[in-house]
């Protein structure tokens, strides 16, 4: 059997077909093959959330997901949240609330929050905290991040 796997996947709305070595991790496929550098490698063990992407609107750790496993799925990175040059309300809310410092964790936080708002457009503060439990920020603390999500949800 071939050690390469054919995959067809929609990345930020654009269909992509490739043959990739079976062991290719989704994060490497996105960053190195497709140049989507918003996807960050940090803990490399599903703890920190910096590599979060959405697969069919649900968050996964791209550091520990095979590219082969997203065959047939729709993958969203933070680049894909921009519509006709306009930021997603969540992205704008992070800016407006100062929920960004070094920015390394930010794409993961925004995508985890996006997944929450897609399934629950009006979350409580507790629901936001619960959904973001598992994304780690080492700069700002979490208060401004939670406020940004609350604002985006009510906007």
């Amino acid at each position, binding site marked *: *059997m*071939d*050690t390469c*796997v054919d995959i067809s996947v929609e990345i930020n709305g654009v269909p992509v077909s490739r043959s990739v*070595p*079976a*062991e290719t*991790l989704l994060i*490497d496929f996105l960053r190195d093959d497709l140049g989507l550098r918003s996807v960050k490698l940090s803990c*490399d*063990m*599903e*703890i920190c*959330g910096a590599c*979060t992407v959405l*697969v069919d609107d*649900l*968050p*996964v*750790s791209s550091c*520990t*997901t*095979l590219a*082969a*496993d997203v065959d047939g799925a729709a993958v969203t990175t933070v680049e894909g949240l921009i519509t006709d040059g306009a930021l997603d309300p969540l992205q704008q809310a992070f800016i407006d609330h100062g929920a960004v410092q070094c920015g390394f964790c930010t794409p993961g936080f925004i995508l*985890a929050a996006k*997944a929450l708002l897609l399934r629950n457009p009006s979350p409580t503060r507790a629901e936001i905290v619960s*959904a973001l*439990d*598992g*994304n780690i920020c080492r700069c700002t603390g979490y208060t401004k991040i939670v406020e940004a999500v609350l604002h985006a949800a009510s906007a």
Partner: protein
Amino acid sequence: MRPDPFTYHQPKSLAEASSLVAELGDGAAFYAGGTELLLLMKMQLAEYRHLVNLKNIDGLKTIGVEHDRLVIGALATHYDIAFSTAVLKHCPSLSRLCSEIANIRVRVAGTIGGNLCFAEPRADPPVLLVALDAGLRLISAHASRVIPASEFFLGPFETARKPDEILTTIEIPLGTGFASVERMKQGNYSLATAAISRSDCHQTWIGYGGGPPKQLDGTGALLDRDNGRTSDEALYAAVAEDIADLEIPSDIEAGESYRRHLIAVAVKRALVSLHETEATGVH
């Protein structure tokens, strides 16, 4: 960290998957959510030249009631189980547990079957499922059997599953009473877990990070005798006695004496939680 190259097999049936692993031998592993297996392969702690993906086999994610059992497909993710109305109705303690495992990303990718077969000693589902008297169905190309969860876990990362057997369903008997589970969480895992189920007697099980779920016989007997009116002091003493000879791990996450304390706290919280579910009548 990157896994070494491997060949990715995508069988369409259980028989094909089982035969593949039987043929390929030690270098092959069944592959489900990957949340545990890929990590090990990335860290070079496990080396497999062949991964046999189970995710494209029909029917392994189904959750529903069959006769007197809640039947959960082994490929159902923690996220699937947490949001299943059937699980919420018939086994809310499992719903809640699956909504709290690790983090959202692990819950979305990780499967209940993968969790059980990996037999991570700090994992919570094994503890609750033994307390619920769940049965685990194992299927190979030639045979099918159901074994009690309490006989499935043999030790850390060790189960009664034969190499070519696939865990296909988790079967939880319905209407057997109330159950609760509480965990002392540290990062993605637990330092201590306690589950209590009660129909005619209290079944009290713990997870402690060092081996398979352990039943606390003395504690269960005490709860039966006291009929729910056990004092904290008596409960802590009973738990301490039940785990006195148990080899409790001591590592960077927690020392042995602290873990012994947390086990007793988890049992106490599980008891409180059990009383709450009994008082409200919501299982």
